[in-house]
């Protein structure tokens, strides 16, 4: 029986239990004893007891039986020898599994008289719309048939046990129903556990991110030494197509890191002054009417996806700057179509609303009294801003700038399109340079062999990026939080 069907039956049992439970609880309320919980709580408790344990068992059973099947197939496969036709044991197993899945589509008559060679079997399967790898071997057919039988047996047995558990849970809950039984507390306790589980997903995500990248990075460092990675100045990973054995390349982080920081610095040079000044203007000078127009417009700027900025940079701004520089020198352009300057400029514009909305919050959080005090002593508005408000808001603004910098470092689409792919080390802002994020995308798009260092390096880069932004975020959040407390 398929697990989807089992799931549907379990839920159906749960619903029946809900209605019976509610009915029974309502029937018991004869007005003599004040019931502890309202009738539908009894219903829900019956539903939960019927469904939850059964679902847990279903999940465990599904995972367990697939592991058991894999081991069975492994054991049944012939010993691997030098002249095995299939490249690896894992491939062997997956071929058997897809064959077994294909056999499911055949009708009973064909299955009874199954041909023993794959050459004869393939057209039968193809007629049912099943396409199989041509290196499926004859010896796999009986293994696949056997695997299907085992799977059927396991599925049937599991379904019976799960349904029995579900019915038992429902009966147990229904028997418990009494006017003074505390169904509401039971239901609420389970709900609380559910809420707690939902909030731990954030932790699980972080753990998932760190562990997944850590394991791949460790595998990467088995073939490339960390010294070469962190201090290498040459990035030349070579191309490793699947099965080519993986020629060695050089994986130096320095050019990528330099490019990342350079572009981020250019972006911050654009975003911080402009964003900060617009925040100051919005908070201190703008009339309510100007504010009501400009603020949504800046929010709109923040809502535009980064791919649009990237395309603007590469389709419009890049060629424009190149032609402009060619016109200025009267011939050869000194700004390339893809350059640090173009990417940084566009990224800076993207970050303007980020800086301005963060600093707006911080500036308006400076207490009114400080402002009034300064104005009362005769300072002009700009003097108040420069000498009182900004110094008071400085820690918060530093935090905001750090958060913005972390956005700039992790930004992907703008640099993928506008910064170029060549890993140069240059200080000329009008040349192309590449970044960590660009190389992650480059190394992982396309058909690369997963376990080659060329692919694994993307995870090492990802971990570096994650660590870099993590430190910046934590410092920034710490500063912002600490600062907020000062005036509260």
């Amino acid at each position, binding site marked *: 029986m398929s697990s989807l069907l089992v799931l549907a039956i379990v839920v159906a049992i749960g619903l029946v239990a809900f209605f019976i439970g509610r009915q029974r609880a309502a029937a018991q309320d004869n007005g003599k004893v004040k019931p502890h919980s309202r009738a539908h709580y009894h219903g829900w408790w019956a539903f939960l007891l019927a469904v939850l344990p059964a679902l847990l068992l279903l999940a465990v059973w599904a995972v367990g039986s697939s592991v058991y099947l894999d081991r069975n197939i492994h054991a049944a496969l012939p010993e691997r020898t030098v002249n095995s036709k299939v490249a690896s044991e894992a491939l062997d197993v997956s071929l058997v599994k897809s064959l077994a899945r294909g056999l499911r589509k055949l009708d009973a008559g064909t299955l009874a008289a199954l041909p023993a060679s794959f050459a004869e079997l393939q057209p039968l399967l193809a007629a049912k719309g099943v396409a199989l790898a041509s290196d499926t071997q004859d010896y796999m057919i009986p293994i696949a048939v056997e695997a299907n039988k085992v799977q059927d047996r396991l599925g049937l047995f599991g379904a019976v046990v799960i349904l029995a558990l579900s019915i038992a849970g429902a009966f147990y809950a229904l028997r418990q129903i009494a006017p003074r039984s505390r169904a509401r507390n039971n239901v609420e306790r389970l709900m609380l556990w559910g809420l707690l589980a939902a909030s731990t997903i954030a932790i699980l995500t972080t753990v998932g991110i760190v562990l997944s990248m850590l394991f791949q990075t460790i595998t990467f460092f088995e073939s490339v030494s960390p010294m070469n990675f962190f201090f290498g100045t040459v990035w030349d990973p070579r191309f490793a197509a699947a099965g080519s054995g993986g020629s060695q390349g050089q994986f130096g982080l320095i050019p990528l890191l330099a490019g990342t920081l350079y572009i981020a610095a250019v972006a911050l040079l654009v975003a911080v002054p402009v964003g900060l000044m617009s925040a100051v203007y919005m908070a201190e000078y703008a009339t309510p009417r100007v504010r009501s127009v400009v603020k949504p417009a800046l929010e709109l700027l923040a809502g535009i996806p980064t791919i649009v900025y990237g395309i603007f940079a590469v389709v419009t701004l890049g060629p424009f700057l190149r032609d402009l520089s060619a016109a200025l020198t009267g011939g050869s352009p000194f700004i390339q179509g893809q350059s640090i300057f173009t990417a940084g400029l566009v990224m800076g514009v993207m970050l303007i609303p980020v800086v301005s909305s963060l600093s707006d919050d911080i500036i308006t959080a400076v207490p009114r009294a400080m402002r009034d005090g300064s104005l009362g002593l005769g300072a002009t508005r700009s003097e108040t801003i420069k000498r009182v408000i900004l110094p008071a808001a400085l820690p918060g603004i530093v935090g905001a700038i750090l958060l913005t910098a972390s956005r700039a470092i992790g930004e992907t689409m703008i640099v993928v399109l506008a910064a170029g792919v060549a890993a140069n080390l240059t200080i000329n802002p009008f040349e192309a340079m590449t970044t960590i994020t660009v190389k*992650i995308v480059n190394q992982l798009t396309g058909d690369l062999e997963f376990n080659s260092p060329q692919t694994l390096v993307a995870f090492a880069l990802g971990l570096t990026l994650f660590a870099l932004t993590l430190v910046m975020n934590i410092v920034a*959040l710490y500063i912002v939080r600490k600062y907020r407390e000062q005036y509260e």
Partner: protein
Amino acid sequence: MTDIPMDTMVRAAAHPRRDIGLKARYAAERRFRIYGAVAISVGLAFLAIMLITIVSKGYTAFWQTTVSLPISFDEKVIDPSNKRAADPSVLIKANYPKLAENALVAKLGINPDDKPAIRQLKGFLSEGARVQLRDIVAADPSVIGTTRDVNILTAANLDSAFKGQIDLSVEEARRKVSDQQIAWMNKLKADGVMAEHFNTGLFSYGASSRPETSGMGVAIIGSFYMMVIVLLLALPIGVAASIYLEEFAKKNRLTDLIEVNINNLAAVPSIVFGLLGLSVFINFLGMPRSAAFVGGLVLTLMTLPTIIIATRAALAAVPPSIRSAALGLGASKMQMVFQHILPLAAPGILTGTIIGLARALGETAPLLLIGMVAFVADYPKTPFDPATALPVQIYMWANEAERAFVERMSGAIIILLVFLMAMNITAIVLRRRFERRW
């Protein structure tokens, strides 16, 4: 002695007042103010320039040139040896472009033996004519032997020429349409046969190597699946997590850890979520590559922090008096939260969710890593089939060389921005309409 002029006395009395440089200070004030106005204008000007260039490049993508031709479904071309009763695949493999070519030859009055002219004619109509005519025949084989008017797409170059985007003053060998083709085009235009129509194909076609038959159908469906998955997963989980943290959690190590994690995840680069999806969902759990389901999961993890932060703010904004009143009337804490606090916080939660969804809709980088940059020509029937997404489709078109793809790409950006703007405006309207000041 007494004849000291009055005005010098006044001047002498005023003189000791310190020069406080009011003029300079006011000038500084004005300058500062102008800097602020300039800063805002820079941002807004950039926004305007960007939108104007994209719209001016892209609006033509919503029209596509077609030629209306009387196609005669000639049996001699489709099924020369009359085998279709025995072998239906004849109808699939038949030389359909020939039909369109014959119709065009007849229309333009070209001598069918004029080989060079015929060769130029081949580049006139889209290769998509093959599929278009095949579908007509496959749907109704009895059409063979009859004549029917069909709107056939022109090739992308002719489409550009028709829209006036090709500079005809350039020497003939250096542009993509020949003088002969232009002459034909003008003739057909004068006959009213060749015309622009609203480009429904942009919304319905899948991936294609030819600009005129490529569209965003697959991407729209893929993005739709992902948004549904994000909504179904991120909203309940996010709300549950916020309720726990805001209403139930005691201040301890665990809740501190969760809070730090959420705040940090909100600032983690999106590409890192792509790496997570690739190594956990695809390599470890064996989920299919390029599938909208995996994309939805990755975007869910990415959107969760946004929704949690918005929901917590909305819950915290509900005044404590409501809580006290509910508890005072004998509600349990769970009843108080679900029956009183949550409905009052709903508008804020909804606004945060829509903004989170809008961010997820525009996100590209993590989807590149889980293999959604795929050439998918068929509609995905389930979320587990290969699909692309709107921003990824834009990225793929950006990597194409032909200028007609740039037009389509800009058109796609317009559509994406319209979707995003609609979502953001909905969020703003909701906030305005339901916002309560306590």
